[in-house]
């Protein structure tokens, strides 16, 4: 019961999604619509589950007065602040001038953009340590990264201003991206696609069951 029902659900749903691609007519088209709608609802509940789990963990941390518990209060307070505002403002919560959009523009956006922006420093420091031209392969890696980075900024073209138009660093960076990079990317994409197709087949046929956990 604990394993058979989930396996049956996975198999049926997976087969319907595959079949409706080849037979996009009733009843498969209708089933595809149902499954897509259910997927959206379950997806929302999954995100809710994550948010509720975050609240549960934060509450446990506050109750046990664990280290940095004060920040868990901030997490809970900020969560409820935006949720209450979002519910009070109703369906048009994204509209201009709403408190929700204010929080999005002046709290969420600066925080998320800065979080990703500071990665530039860590990437630079990691590359300083990792990028050594020890052999031919490593030199290719280093060279490709160097040309792409330099070709994407104005100084790249300034340094090669003496060359004809199509031979400057920006053109070279574009060529590297469009041909050798695209070739390697294609090989990787085809490899990934083969892996995903075989794993999906194993899951649908019930051979791969690790997502169901132990017991």
């Amino acid at each position, binding site marked *: 019961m604990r394993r058979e029902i989930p396996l049956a659900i996975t198999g049926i749903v997976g087969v319907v999604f595959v079949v409706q691609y080849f037979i996009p007519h009733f009843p498969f088209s209708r089933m595809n619509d149902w499954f897509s709608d259910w997927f959206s609802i379950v*997806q929302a509940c999954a995100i809710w589950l994550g948010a509720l789990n975050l609240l549960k963990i934060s509450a446990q941390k506050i109750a046990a007065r664990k280290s940095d518990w004060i920040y868990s209060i901030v997490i809970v307070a900020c969560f409820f602040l935006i949720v209450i505002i979002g519910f009070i403002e109703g369906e048009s919560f994204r509209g201009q001038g709403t408190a929700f959009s204010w929080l999005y523009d002046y709290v969420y956006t600066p925080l998320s953009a800065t979080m990703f*922006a*500071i990665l530039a420093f860590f*990437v630079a420091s990691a590359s300083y340590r990792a990028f050594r031209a020890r052999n031919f392969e490593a030199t290719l890696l280093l060279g490709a990264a160097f040309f792409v980075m330099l070709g994407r900024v104005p100084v790249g073209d300034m340094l090669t201003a003496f060359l004809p138009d199509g031979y400057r660093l920006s053109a070279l960076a574009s060529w590297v991206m469009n041909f050798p990079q695209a070739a390697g990317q294609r090989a990787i994409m085809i490899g990934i696609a083969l892996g*995903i197709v075989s794993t999906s087949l194993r*899951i649908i046929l019930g051979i791969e069951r690790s997502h169901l956990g132990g017991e």
Partner: protein
Amino acid sequence: MEHFAVWVAAFLTLGIVSFLYKDNPWYKLSEAIFVGISAGYWFVVLFWDNIYGKFWNGIFPEELIDSAGNVVTREPDYWLLVGAVLGTLMLLRLIPKIGWISRWPLAFIIGCTSGLYLINYFSSNMMRQVEATIMPLVGHWVLDPATSQNAFSAFSGADIFSNLVLVIGTFTGLVYFYFSKEHRGAFGGTAKVGIFFIMITFGASFGYTVMSRMSLLIGRADFLLFDWLGLVR
């Protein structure tokens, strides 16, 4: 209010940047705000878009008025209740004793994703990529409007070289990923060329990622110097 908003955004931006010095209370506060606001943001967005927009409006459809001014009544779609039941079962994971029931909606999600990925990846990431690689290398036939006959149009030397790089790179890269045969002899040599292309791919992708992060960093610096401090005009 606008002035206050800019100060809030600057305070939070500098709080995150302060981590470059070391982990500190300012960073931890900004991080906690980010975690709480992000979780709440997606909670609200998915409620209004998926739960209210899809489920509630599907079960209790509102009357619509068409372009001719007629009231259009839609039938409720009670099949959406199945989705609501699955969603509720997902939340049971929070109750350890009956948490195993959440495997049913999880199995549904895995089934949907597997079915979708099987088809999508096979068609877009495999067949389309193979199709794009089987390309004319040295030229192609084009219809000559003057004679209404097909004429061969040769590519330039640079184009032929670029096309060869693309085809050879893809083929050798695929050979490298074939691990069922030992990489020795001619096969090993081909795989070696494949590694060169894959190294260029990794290097170029790395450079591209660094530049995207840099552009975000420039955006934040621009905000601090222009919007907040007003130093740059």
